[in-house]
């Protein structure tokens, strides 16, 4: 079994459980993913499978990608991703993975990786959670500023601003993994997964879902 699936975030809603409690859920469309290539220890030095997800029109793809996909008997894919395996894969190129492989994992935990929403150029309060300055007590025109960035006189006294000093800058649009998200439901008919709570990225964003190695507790 391959413990990973590529998916698309659909959006959030909530569900009402039998005892009336509302649970926030993210609806995710999982798969179908095509196995594009199987790597093994002898030839490649490690065991892995390469998954392709989402079709792309051949004229928008490149010949190398089309040729690579055709070896698995399928068209070019929008996203490809390699999944490392501890043991030799029990699938072969051309096999299709769906949410069914998660069906036995309901109420288990999954890790979800996505690309977070871009926030643009963000100040230190938003980006790093700085406190900002007082609204009054003489503060003027710098209520959201960072304050001192440390002594940085040139020469023997210091060597400029410390590397990694947290400042304003671009925020978001980075890869982010949220671990140990509860898998509440698998709808094999429509290929949907219901995950408890939120996942990174905008609706329509691509997600990588894998069975978590975190222990529930």
């Amino acid at each position, binding site marked *: 079994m391959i413990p990973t699936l590529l998916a698309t975030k*659909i959006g959030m*809603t*909530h569900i*009402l459980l039998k005892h*009336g409690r509302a649970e926030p859920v993210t609806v995710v469309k999982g798969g179908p993913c095509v196995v594009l290539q199987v790597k093994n220890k002898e030839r490649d030095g490690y065991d892995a499978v390469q998954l392709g997800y989402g079709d792309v029109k051949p004229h928008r793809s490149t010949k190398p990608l089309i040729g690579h996909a055709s070896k698995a008997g399928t068209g070019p894919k929008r996203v490809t991703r390699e999944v490392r395996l501890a043991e030799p894969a029990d699938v072969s190129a051309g096999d299709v993975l769906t949410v069914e492989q998660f069906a036995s994992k309901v109420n288990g935990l999954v890790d979800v990786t996505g690309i977070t929403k871009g926030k643009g150029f963000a100040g230190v309060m938003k980006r790093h959670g700085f406190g900002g300055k007082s609204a009054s007590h003489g503060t003027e025109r710098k209520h959201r500023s960072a304050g001192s960035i440390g002594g940085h006189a040139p020469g023997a006294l210091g060597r400029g601003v410390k590397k990694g000093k947290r400042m304003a800058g671009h925020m978001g649009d980075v890869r982010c993994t949220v671990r140990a998200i509860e898998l509440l439901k698998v*709808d094999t008919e*429509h290929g*949907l997964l*219901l995950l408890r709570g939120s996942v990174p990225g905008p609706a329509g964003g691509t997600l990588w879902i894998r069975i978590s190695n975190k222990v529930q507790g």
Partner: protein
Amino acid sequence: MRHPLIEIAEQPFLKSVLPEFSIGDTVDVHCRIVEGDKERVQIFNGVVIARQGAGINERFFVRRIVANEGVERTFLIHSPNVVEVNVRRRGKVRRAKLFYLRYRVGKARKVRELRVQKKSKAQRELSAASA
């Protein structure tokens, strides 16, 4: 805008039969209350002043006066805790949101015209025939 796949995902959690009532009706909402391991049904009586939302998020507002103080409760119409909604009196209203009732005091607040349901002769005969 609601994504069609979200509606599919919500579908199994919706009630197949929804309680029937309309805005302005005076209703008894039977809501299940769990205290520890005990369960009981409490009745909240009041006027339905609004209904909003879609899918599993659809909810209605019930307003009543307790000890001369207005009390409003919002119920998720699909919640399993809303066991039953009984219409006690039908109200005659001309708008979908009755928030103006919040600013009414005394008798003005109480005046909510009842709809006298006059069945036509044909309807009476029809219901008599089916009974």
